[in-house]
């Protein structure tokens, strides 16, 4: 019977030893500064530009790209997991500092300073909504401003659904400019560009730095009544950066006013349409505009895959290993004590209903960004199947067998170890397998909070509409799920006693 009690312990030791060794072999964070960027192309390009500008001035800088949305970056900055990230004044005013009077730049700076955050001067472009028409249309009808549209009531306009609904979108725009157009429809943004090109639509809504503006050679009508909020790009950085890394703040000022909308739009186009890497585009910019030598840091397919695999394995192995160590005893406790059991099952059940992205984001204020919050979230998600199957496996044992174990004189602990756990092992292993597969899948979301893994190429691939890149994450993730399943299938053979695999002959 000894092998039964030793094998799971051995398995767990191996499971736990691997990631800890892996963590120690990870390169230590030698960087002075960490830059973050959101999961859209413009933000990633700006993050790379900041990194190259810093490294060009001999400040060691790491760039954590493709972190999730605004909230994640903002929390990470406040927490100190990142030191710098590019943001927009409009986002600060309307979202992050909502309710505070920030209508002038000095007021905005003061509000940020209260949170220990400083802000650069605007970088030079305003990424807000605009109304775009083809250059031909603009020339033919003599259009320069949005007010000019008043003279062309028969124009057909195609807007994204979000723009049709937003408070500062079409309804408000129509009021501000008293626009007469009746022929207004909602349609997909990509289709809108094509409709404009084919002449089916005369005007569309765009972001002022959209790559497509240059590609389709569009003319943006001037917002002569200042209807749209200003989304000036700025760089946010922690107030303690100045003392921690002397010269860093001064270096950032070199970027102020250097990027106009046309330039940003062209850089976005180079990535999204010409399929250049963000790093290449950013390096070209700093070399050309700031005369700073920069080498694009693009890693090859194998290096990328190796890094994603390593990151992913660390997430899965630590979170799953800890979940097994924690959930099996919890399941035993739940099976032994009815009332406690109800509570345990209810709590782990509730945890499972929290949307995964929300759980990841909740973790940031506590644990920052990167591996630790992702591991804790994955750990929590892995509990339910194991706890429930351990509980069900133990409760499902024939009462005559459990009674016999006690009746021949086995103490409760010995009965659990020698009789009950081996009999419940098949159910427990099934729970662990379920958890493992869910864990491998959910771990791809870890990339949203900077934990890396197979989610990284998936996220970037979705952003760039690059199927090959999506598959670079999705296929290994599927393979890993199958492999993990296979490993536990083998482990099951070792830990589920042979007698349980026999059919009764009556």
């Amino acid at each position, binding site marked *: 019977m000894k092998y039964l009690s030793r094998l799971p312990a051995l398995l767990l030791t191996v499971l736990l030893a691997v990631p800890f060794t892996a963590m120690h072999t990870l390169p230590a964070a030698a960087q002075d500064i960490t830059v973050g960027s959101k999961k859209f192309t413009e933000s990633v390009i700006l993050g790379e530009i900041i990194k190259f500008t810093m490294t060009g001035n001999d400040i060691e800088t790491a760039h954590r790209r493709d972190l999730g949305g605004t909230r994640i970056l903002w929390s990470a900055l406040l927490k100190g997991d990142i030191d710098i990230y590019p943001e927009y004044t409009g986002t600060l005013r309307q979202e992050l500092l909502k309710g505070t009077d920030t209508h002038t730049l000095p007021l905005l700076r003061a509000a940020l300073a209260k949170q220990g955050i400083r802000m650069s001067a605007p970088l030079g472009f305003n990424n807000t909504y605009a109304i775009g028409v083809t250059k031909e249309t603009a020339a033919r009808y003599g259009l320069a401003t949005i007010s000019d549209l008043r003279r062309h009531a028969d124009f057909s306009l195609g807007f994204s659904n979000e723009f049709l609904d937003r408070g500062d979108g079409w309804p408000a725009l129509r009021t501000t400019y008293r626009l007469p157009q009746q022929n207004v429809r909602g349609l997909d943004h990509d289709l809108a560009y094509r409709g404009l090109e084919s002449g089916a639509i005369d005007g569309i809504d765009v972001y002022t730095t959209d790559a497509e503006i240059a590609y389709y050679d569009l003319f943006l009508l001037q917002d002569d009544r200042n209807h749209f909020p200003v989304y000036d790009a700025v760089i946010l950085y922690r107030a303690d950066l100045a003392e921690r890394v002397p010269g860093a703040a001064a270096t950032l000022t070199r970027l102020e006013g250097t990027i106009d909308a046309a330039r940003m739009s062209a850089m976005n186009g180079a990535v999204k349409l010409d399929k250049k890497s963000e790093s290449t585009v950013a390096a070209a910019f700093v070399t050309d505009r700031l005369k700073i030598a920069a080498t694009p840091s693009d890693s090859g397919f194998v290096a990328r895959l190796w890094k994603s695999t390593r990151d992913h394995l660390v997430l899965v192995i630590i979170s799953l290993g800890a979940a097994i160590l924690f959930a099996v005893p919890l399941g035993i406790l739940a099976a032994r004590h009815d009332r406690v059991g109800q509570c345990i099952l209810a709590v782990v059940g509730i945890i499972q209903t929290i949307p995964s992205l929300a759980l990841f984001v909740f973790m940031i204020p506590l644990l920052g960004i990167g591996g630790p919050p992702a591991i804790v979230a994955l750990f929590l998600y892995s509990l339910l199947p194991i706890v429930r199957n351990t509980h069900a496996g133990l409760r499902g044992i024939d009462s005559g067998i459990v009674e016999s174990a006690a*009746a021949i004189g086995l103490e409760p602990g010995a009965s659990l170890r020698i009789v009950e756990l081996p009999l419940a092992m098949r159910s427990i292993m099934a729970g662990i397998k379920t958890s493992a597969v869910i864990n491998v899948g959910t771990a791809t979301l870890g990339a949203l909070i900077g934990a890396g893994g197979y989610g990284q190429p998936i996220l970037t691939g979705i952003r760039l509409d690059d199927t090959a890149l999506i598959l670079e994450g999705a296929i290994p993730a599927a393979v890993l799920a199958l492999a993990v399943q296979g490993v536990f299938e083998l482990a099951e053979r070792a830990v589920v006693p042979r007698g349980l695999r026999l059919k009764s*002959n009556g």
Partner: protein
Amino acid sequence: MHLMFHLSDISKSYGPLFAVAHTTLDIPAGRTTALIGPSGCGKSTLLRLMNGLIAPDTGSVTFDGEAVTAANASSLRRRMGYVIQQGGLFPHMTARQNISVMARHTGWTAADTESRLQVLADLTRFPLDALARYPAELSGGQRQRVSLMRALMLDPDALLLDEPLGALDPMVRFDLQTELADIFKTLGKTVVLVTHDLFEAAHFASDIVLLRDGAVEQRASMDVLLSAPASTFVKKFVGAQRGLNGARGLNGEPGL
């Protein structure tokens, strides 16, 4: 007379239902006592009270002069073998592992364990090569033999059996009855047997305890139960059993 078990004024209820109601019962050492009665009369509960699987609501149980408590139950049970209807064998262990599980747990040497196994296999006429089989690979009768060997492994003072033959088909049951009775005679141990079958009880024991609603209705030999029933309940119970078994002339009991 040496008493193996002494149950004093014990009660056990499940919700409002009394399984055992203020019952006092002595089990003498060195012979077989049968507990019998209709379903729900509390006979299985009494057996579980004896080895402490169930704690009584009132009263006390002593085993060989020692009070059975939650603290000492595990160690006392090693001196009481226990066999239940389906055998209660551990399906993940071979017959050999099932029988020797307590010997291993209490640190017997391999040689001692093996020689004891041989003795028991001989006693129960269990084929040695079948010791390597799992319960699922054994017949019903073989399983009960394994269960009996497991109960006897530590050479206990008493043997508690709860319908040990209840799940077997009639032919196997008949054979095993004869064999078990011989084995008990050979061993000379205290045996407490629970059964719902009066003739099985008579086959094993001259001391029959007839229970009704958790209390002793009459304690006597088969002959006395037949000739001098203490109540109409006893009379009806005996009569019903005769109706079921009489035609078979089971075990050659005279006059049945």
